[in-house]
């Protein structure tokens, strides 16, 4: 077994240091070492997007990032979305719009949606479908997901206008 490396990151706003082997993926370390089990292992080869987290603000498949590469990086996971016990509008809209069934793909969709709405607060249906193409859902058929993202965009814009 090769030597463990020390990695310093910021996860959901908190400084987090961990030890890992070079061969370990960020997903493995998040789930097995840090017990942040929100990001899911679906395909483990970059197709399904269930392990999506934000790395320095960009959505990535955490199964295709080595944990050692995350040194110095800012990571956001689904665990950081809700604030002070209040669901993020994206989470609320997925829940209320029944945009999930089994839920395995949901954390990945939530993080990709957050990244999309951070970049483009008013996406068209095409923008939503295009930007979420890297997230696969085998239950819902996507229409409810798209509507939940549209509703979340509307609520976030209303909240923005009110402040």
């Amino acid at each position, binding site marked *: 077994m090769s030597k463990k490396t020390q990695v310093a990151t910021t996860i959901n706003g908190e400084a987090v240091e961990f030890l890992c082997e*070079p061969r370990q993926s960020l997903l493995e370390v998040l789930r097995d070492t840090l017990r942040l089990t929100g990001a899911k292992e679906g395909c483990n080869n970059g197709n399904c997007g269930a392990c999506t987290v934000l790395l320095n603000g960009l*959505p990535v498949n955490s*199964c295709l990032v*080595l944990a050692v*590469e995350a040194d110095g990086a800012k990571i956001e996971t689904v665990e950081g979305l809700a604030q002070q016990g209040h669901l993020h509008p994206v989470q609320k809209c997925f829940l209320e719009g029944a945009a999930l069934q089994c839920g395995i793909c949901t954390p990945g969709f939530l993080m990709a949606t957050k990244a999309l709405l951070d970049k483009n607060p008013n996406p068209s249906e095409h923008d939503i*479908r295009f*930007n979420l193409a*890297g997230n696969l859902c085998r239950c819902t058929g996507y229409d409810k997901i798209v509507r939940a993202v549209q509703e979340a965009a509307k609520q976030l814009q209303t909240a923005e206008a009110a402040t």
Partner: protein
Amino acid sequence: MRAFSYAAPGSVQEATRLLATANGGAKVLAGGTDILVQLREGLRTADLVVDVKKIPELMELAYDAPSGLHLGASVPCYQLYEREELCRAYSALTDAGRIVGGWQIQSRASVGGNLCNSSPAADTVPALIALRAVCRIARPDGTREVPVEEFCVAPGRNVLEKGEILVSLELPPPQPNSGSAYQRFIPRNEMDIAVVGVASWVKLNAAGDRIESARIAVGAVAPTARFAQEASELLAGKPADEATFEQAGDLARKVASPISDMRGTAEFRTHLVGVLVKRTLTHAVERARQA
């Protein structure tokens, strides 16, 4: 994944030295979207993984109209298509970068990595060929340049020797009245591997009705992406109309020697070459007229 050691050198020289002196297998890590899958699935093995994303030259993206595009080998795809001026100047390349995997892949995957992975179906490679890209390669004692159409030699194999890395892709400045486009055929809307991919580049006369020169490249129909020389040369001096595009499509089919697999039969792929040549030429000409 089998254990390996990891290094993240800060200079080209250090990276080439590490790769040249490594005992056993050493692999380069850029965006990791191919190599990490291959290492995990045992398709490739490594004792040392050299992360090249800390090397400034490989992460540099520099463009200006008089000198062209300097694209560091590890620059992720999203950085290309998010820049309006690059979408205009190198449309075929940004067309391709936008459809390499989904957004999660494009956040990490680089054009240089797409080339070095050397898949016959790589989306960015036909675009690089059509746009006359040149590969700048470094080794411990110097550098060399290779035209992109000579870089890949077989599926998964390229001209890089032990101790060499791809540093950058150099694309010539955009010419007046020129335009380009890349399209692929896939049975889904997104997130799939090209059944056939075609990139076309054209330069029109000032009136915009005649082609002065053109370059067509095809992917996924041969062991490596191919420059369709005969089809490209035919277009010089011809009117920019459908009949001409059709002829070019017929000639481009000659460079196709596809296999039949789950994505399509050889016959279907050969047919698609003609269809996509016509479509990409049409699109490239529209763009050239707007330029």
